[in-house]
């Protein structure tokens, strides 16, 4: 139990020494991606091998580590899930990719015992071998501050977090700063909310502090519902203490003693890591009553979402924590005055809170030196879609889309050409070739008709149909509309109906105008962000790809060749030898015929999945 500033400092230096004295460290990535690839089994195998070989090893960082042991740890997400499971070797900084259980023996014998690099496990790019993480092009252009610990430390150990300067932001705020000074520091840093709106964080905290009501709350929005975004998931899994520390500093600055973390149910690993972190911090006395011997008390609770996208909206989220249907309400009063349990509430998202300890520790000048003037700092993005390198990245604001997609993302996969990028998920817009040199920032994107949103970047190639993309997002928003406002509930349904007609070849003249008219109404008359932005994907795809809409409507043709209802799959009777191979893969038994005679596809039954095409040894099946 830490009772004073001295206690905290002592513990930190004790563990810093212990961490430094470990001869080697093996960090096995235990983010959702690598776990799915079997990283936990790799961890267990390594552990068993170390034990049978009698190598001194510490699974948990102990203060008495005396310099001859190997540290074996589960780290958070490295962000480059595609080449997982990842194993990182320190102090060399080597990164082994696509590690399998069979590789464990070699890792122990070659790398740990002899200190030799295993070339075949290294990342390769065009024949070049990248030993270290920083040598990999995916990481080269990144600036990792918020994600700095992800992949580098044991995500389940508060001691490692402390050893690397953890909770020194809280320490500084607690002993050297007043509430107003904390808020000033955050205001001057220019930090803007990372959840989508980009509201200045310091101003928000100041408004909460001003309220006379004695009970206040800090709420962390971990309901990262945008499909294609997983920045917050990785932070919660990989560096949970940074979120806790940020929330505590927020509580300290504005006089709140209760904090709630609202995490979506689809992130079970994040929930368990946060739970562990809270238990550890409470045990050490960094959470609870009279923290480090001061008057400041702070308690944290975790609430799990139950599958409602709209709960990412502030007032819906607080309603959900209160145990109600998560429906947004009319504002004002705003959350800062009347939030959780009708009390003044600081509500920020995970990435925002994770920035706070860094700003307090390093000062606002440091923070302002990163990024662009109106959007300082870095931003994490989830880079996905038809791109070579998918994963989680962090870049300074002001980086261009071109750098993100082509330098970090490595360009398009499978030889496709770049067509567009959806930014900000279902509430965002679609950017195209002409926007590639746009610097990423809250305001620059807004001007381009998109928004940064929470940071999902889904890159699409020329085989992606933009009308279908708009339909996909509209389907999502329509499903997730809470039903409170008629324009959103009915308007999204009508828009979805029209889009479904268009992609099935039943579009009519005037549909585009009707879509735009509905878009206008839904945007103007809905209460919350979900409804207000629901039409953005439709508007921006019409603006950028109007000709694709027109081809669907007028020529009943999908220029990208993606809309299944607009294509036919046929067997060329000249080429077909009647081997019946194709019938075996057809999921709907649409193909029939006599052996050694040409087979035919029943177009009524065919779902155009294309599964039969590659099975034909005579290339007789094709899309027409």
């Amino acid at each position, binding site marked *: 139990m830490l009772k004073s500033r001295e206690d905290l400092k002592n513990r930190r230096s004790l563990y810093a020494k212990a961490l430094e004295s470990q001869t080697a460290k093996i960090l096995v990535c235990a983010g959702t991606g690598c776990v799915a690839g079997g990283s936990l089994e790799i961890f267990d195998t390594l552990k068993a091998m170390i034990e049978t070989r009698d190598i001194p090893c510490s699974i948990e960082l102990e203060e008495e580590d005396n310099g001859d042991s190997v540290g074996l740890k589960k780290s958070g997400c490295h962000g480059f*899930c595609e080449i997982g499971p990842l194993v990182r070797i320190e102090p060399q900084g080597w990164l082994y990719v696509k590690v399998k259980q069979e590789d464990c023996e070699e890792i122990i014998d070659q790398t740990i015992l002899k200190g030799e690099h295993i070339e075949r496990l290294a990342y390769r790019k065009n024949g070049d071998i990248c030993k270290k993480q920083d040598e990999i092009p995916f990481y080269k252009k990144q600036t990792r501050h918020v994600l700095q610990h992800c992949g580098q430390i044991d995500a389940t150990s508060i001691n490692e977090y402390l050893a690397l300067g953890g909770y020194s932001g809280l320490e500084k705020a607690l002993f050297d700063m007043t509430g107003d000074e904390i808020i000033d520091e955050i205001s001057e840093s220019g930090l803007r909310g990372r959840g989508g709106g980009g509201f200045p964080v310091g101003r928000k905290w100041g408004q909460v502090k001003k309220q006379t009501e004695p009970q206040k709350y800090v709420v962390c929005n971990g309901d990262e519902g945008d499909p294609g975004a997983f920045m917050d998931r990785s932070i919660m899994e990989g560096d949970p203490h940074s979120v806790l520390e940020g929330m505590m500093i927020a509580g300290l600055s504005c006089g709140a003693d209760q904090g709630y973390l609202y995490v979506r149910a*689809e992130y079970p690993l994040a929930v368990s890591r946060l739970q562990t972190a809270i238990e550890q911090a409470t045990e050490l006395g960094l959470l609870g009553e009279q923290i480090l011997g001061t008057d400041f008390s702070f308690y944290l609770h975790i*609430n799990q979402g139950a599958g409602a996208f709209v709960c990412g909206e502030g007032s819906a989220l607080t309603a959900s924590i209160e145990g109600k249907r998560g429906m947004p309400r009319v504002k004002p009063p705003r959350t800062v005055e009347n939030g959780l349990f009708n009390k003044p509430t600081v509500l920020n998202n995970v990435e925002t809170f994770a920035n706070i300890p860094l700003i307090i520790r390093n000062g606002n000048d440091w923070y302002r030196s990163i990024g662009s003037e109106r959007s300082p700092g870095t931003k994490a993005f989830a880079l996905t879609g038809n791109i070579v390198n998918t994963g989680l990245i962090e870049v300074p604001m002001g980086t261009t889309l071109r750098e993100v997609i082509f330098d970090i993302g490595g360009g398009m996969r499978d030889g496709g050409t770049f067509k567009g990028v959806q930014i900000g998920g279902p509430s965002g817009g679609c950017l195209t070739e002409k926007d590639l040199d746009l610097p990423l920032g809250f305001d620059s994107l807004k001007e381009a008709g998109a928004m940064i949103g929470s940071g999902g970047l889904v890159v699409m190639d020329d085989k992606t149909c933009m009308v279908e993309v708009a339909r996909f*997002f509209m389907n999502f928003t329509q499903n997730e509309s809470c039903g409170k406002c008629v324009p959103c509930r009915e308007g999204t349904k009508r828009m979805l109906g029209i889009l479904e007609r268009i992609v099935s070849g039943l579009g009519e003249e005037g549909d585009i105008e009707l879509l735009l008219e509905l878009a206008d109404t839904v945007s103007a008359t809905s209460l919350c962000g979900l409804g207000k932005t629901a039409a953005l994907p439709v508007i921006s795809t019409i603006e950028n790809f109007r000709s694709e809409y027109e081809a669907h409507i007028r020529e009943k043709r999908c220029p990208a060749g993606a809309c299944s209802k607009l294509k036919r799959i046929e067997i060329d009777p000249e080429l077909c030898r009647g081997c019946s191979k194709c019938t075996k893969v057809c*999921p709907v038994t649409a193909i029939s015929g006599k052996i050694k005679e040409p087979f035919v596809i029943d177009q009524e039954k065919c779902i155009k999945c294309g599964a039969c095409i590659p099975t034909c040894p005579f290339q007789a099946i094709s899309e027409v």
Partner: protein
Amino acid sequence: MSHKFDSYTIDEIIDEFGAQPSSVIAILQGVQEKHRYLPKEYFPHIAKRLGVSEASLYSVATFYENFSLEPKGKYVLKVCDGTACHVRKSIPILDRLRSELNLSEEKCTTDDLSFTLETVSCLGACGLAPVLTVNDKVYPAMTPDKASELLKQLKEGLVDA
């Protein structure tokens, strides 16, 4: 399927989260974790203990996607149809599984209660797209064929999920 009312376990769940209206969601999640769905028979008791109306319990249970008032299968398969999985062709996987299990958009659970097939909007495992989960275990980089194989293994009890 009717459920035998077991107030003892229900009380245990309620006491774990506290008998107050704000615990409704956590309690329903606890009940669902135990039974894989929310048996309606429990509602009067929960409502009474929390001091809320049964109607308000229903309002919460029907609002959130994760709650089910119908029994679910032993294996719950969720095909991710988030943006990243969608553009990397998740729908053919869903179609294949639906046809092999004789399920549809309306009918999600097999009659013998062994499989439930659903879609989910994003699991945050976009780097491994397309993915599906079986009782929360993530299976990466799926194809229709790999999904069929997985299904076969589940049916034969070769993998535990």
